[in-house]
């Protein structure tokens, strides 16, 4: 969802930076300063978390693609090869005068091949896969024509030369076409798996960067709080104590223009009034 609207991020980015910069810098109140620190911290972690979730969701989709799309086609290709081999055995039986047994094997195998082919045809997910499936169809149609010739007529009975020269060549051509489809899906599976690996890397890195950044930010945040909030309070306390002990006037320089500078000037006024 985030990726679909990356503009939101860009706009968020620009507005957040501009908001902070255009704020009246040191005129901000202490509460606003502290709140801004926590907001920055939260933003870094939230964005990193959102990005990790997005990448993890993509990993899930890639795995699904791997299993459903590519594996389905590979499985169909295996079934087609198995059916082709059974048909090849069937035709040899037909040629060796075991006609009926051969024909029944060929018919059963043809049905298996057609079913597997339909699976492959309905599962075209890779660019160029359609052409590969089309090549199987063309090769198988040619092969089937030869099968029908042997099943129907007696002209080729016992003719092993015809088998080796035409039928076996056509069988090999069809098998090669099916194997090409399998290789294509294998390659896609490998590509998807590599993609999953890099996505897994990308899913973890924002988290790592966010943790390191948050740690560094926390140190800077606490340092600035110490310099601009804690130190003035300590100095003010010491100044008041000195005034109480030795009557020394409270002289503290506060660079920022927040509640602390107001407090210091109020304390100064109070002491001046009480001295009168």
């Amino acid at each position, binding site marked *: 969802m985030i990726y679909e609207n990356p503009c939101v991020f860009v706009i968020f980015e620009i507005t957040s930076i501009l908001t902070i910069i255009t704020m009246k810098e*040191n005129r901000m109140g202490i509460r606003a300063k502290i709140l801004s620190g926590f907001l920055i911290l939260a933003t870094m972690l939230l964005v990193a978390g959102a990005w990790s979730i997005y990448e993890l969701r993509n990993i899930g989709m890639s795995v699904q693609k791997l299993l459903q799309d590519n594996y389905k086609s590979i499985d169909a290709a295996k079934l087609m090869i198995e059916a082709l081999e059974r048909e090849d055995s069937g035709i040899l039986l037909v040629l060796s005068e075991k006609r009926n047994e051969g024909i029944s094997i060929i018919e059963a195998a043809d049905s298996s091949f057609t079913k597997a082919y339909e699976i492959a045809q309905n599962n075209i997910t890779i660019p160029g896969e359609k052409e590969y499936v089309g090549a199987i169809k063309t090769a198988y149609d040619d092969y089937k024509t030869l099968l029908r010739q042997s099943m129907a007529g007696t002209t080729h009975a016992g003719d092993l030369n015809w088998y080796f020269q035409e039928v076996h060549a056509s069988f090999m051509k069809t098998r090669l076409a099916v194997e090409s489809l399998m290789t294509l899906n294998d390659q896609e599976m490998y590509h998807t798996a590599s993609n999953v690996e890099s996505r897994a890397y*990308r899913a973890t890195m924002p988290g790592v960067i966010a943790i390191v950044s948050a740690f560094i930010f926390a140190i800077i945040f606490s340092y600035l709080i110490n310099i601009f909030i804690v130190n003035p309070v300590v100095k003010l306390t010491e100044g008041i104590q000195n005034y109480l002990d030795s009557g020394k006037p409270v002289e503290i320089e506060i660079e920022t223009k927040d509640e602390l500078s107001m407090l210091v000037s109020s304390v100064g006024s109070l002491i001046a009034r009480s001295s009168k």
Partner: protein
Amino acid sequence: MRPYIVLRYIGTVLLLNATFLLVSAAISFFNSDSAFFPLIYTCLIAALFGAFPFIFVPPTEEISNKEGFTIIVTSWLLSCLIGMVPYVLWGGEFTLSNAWFESVSGFTTTGSTILTDIEALPDGLLFWRSATHWIGGVGIIIFALSVLPSMGKVGMILYRTETSPLASANFRYRTQKMLQIIMFVYVGLTVLETIALMFCGMGLFDAITHSFATIATGGFSTKNMSVAYYGSTAIEIVIMIFMVLSGVNFGLLFVAVSGKIGVMLKSTVIRFYLITLMAGVILATVNIHGAPFDSWTEAIRYASFQVISIGTSTGFATTDTTVWPPFAQLLILFFTLQCACSGSTSGGIKVDRTVLFLHALRKRITMVEHPHAIVKTKLDTMPVDDDVLEASLLYITLYVVIVFISSLIICFLGIDIMTAFSASAAAMGNVGPGFGLVGSAGNFSHVPELGKWILTGDMLLGRLEIFGLLLFFLLRSWK
């Protein structure tokens, strides 16, 4: 020293980085490439870190020299760290060491790469890679013209001319004045080169990225074959002109642009710089004519581009110099060590120190001939004290010693002598390509992990003029 003031000014540098990251992310977004998230997330981190100190730390008029120095050195190191984040997040060939190497190489304007296939990078990341050169270039000039002159006599001599009155002013004034000069010369040169390259037939994206790399004397190209990809003499001539200009002291260049070109041409350093480049081109042309280049036209074309590219520490390539005859290779190696002028974006020992070295040599010879003579050394009209000459000689010695030590370590890691020495010299001089495995047609991916870290150390040492980095880490001197 007030660390919170340092934080505020580093914030400005981080915001500059964030701006370029945002532009790179926008390029990625419009190309729908895979670098959008890495770039925008890094932009977010840089922007938040950069803007946060503004909330707490009030603006200050006065910044001490030490604070100014710390701001620049820390900004550099932090920029390198931020610069590596998009690479690490994107993945691909970028392991942690590789990302650090590429980032340091970019910001120090070295131009060495670990990438075996640059063109596989998405456009957004390619733009960021070139932008690191450009941002680094701005940093170098501020460092060289604004900070170093305030760090003693040597700095004043090396980065003299118009900058010397500025050196006596406070950091804020110097920086403001310098930024005005930089914005004028630096941006002007970048725009001019972009237009010229587009006029020669280069696309807008390539023209901008190559201009970034030329003006910063970096050398990152968007093509695997570097400038050779275009096979255009016109493009090569344009790049050569801007490489030579980028090797000149930017202060002098500003004076020349202001109409006082004579001031620039009268400078001994500039004359020496131009004469050595011309001599290098002539010698290389004569040497490579016959083999590997049959015609004089080809020989002069390739010799001039390679000599100027290395002599200005840019590192672009139009041919593989590893197949050149040994003399031409040694000539290139000399330029790898010397490079161009101080106060430019160039690296290396610098022409200024070579000139001071020659002055010291002449003085020594005179002293040998006339032991009681009082010999005064002058560079143009400025008298040069003995301690300045001594410091320059010490710098050259230290420079060579560091190159030797890192070569030794890299050799120990199993790399051949030529590769190790040229890689160290190229890293230290912020040049880019060396010879052997890291030649102009190769890359640094073969260098072992430890070697890569050593080379990035060399790059930073060379960029921050050795003492700059050493001083930064010698915390005692800050007390």
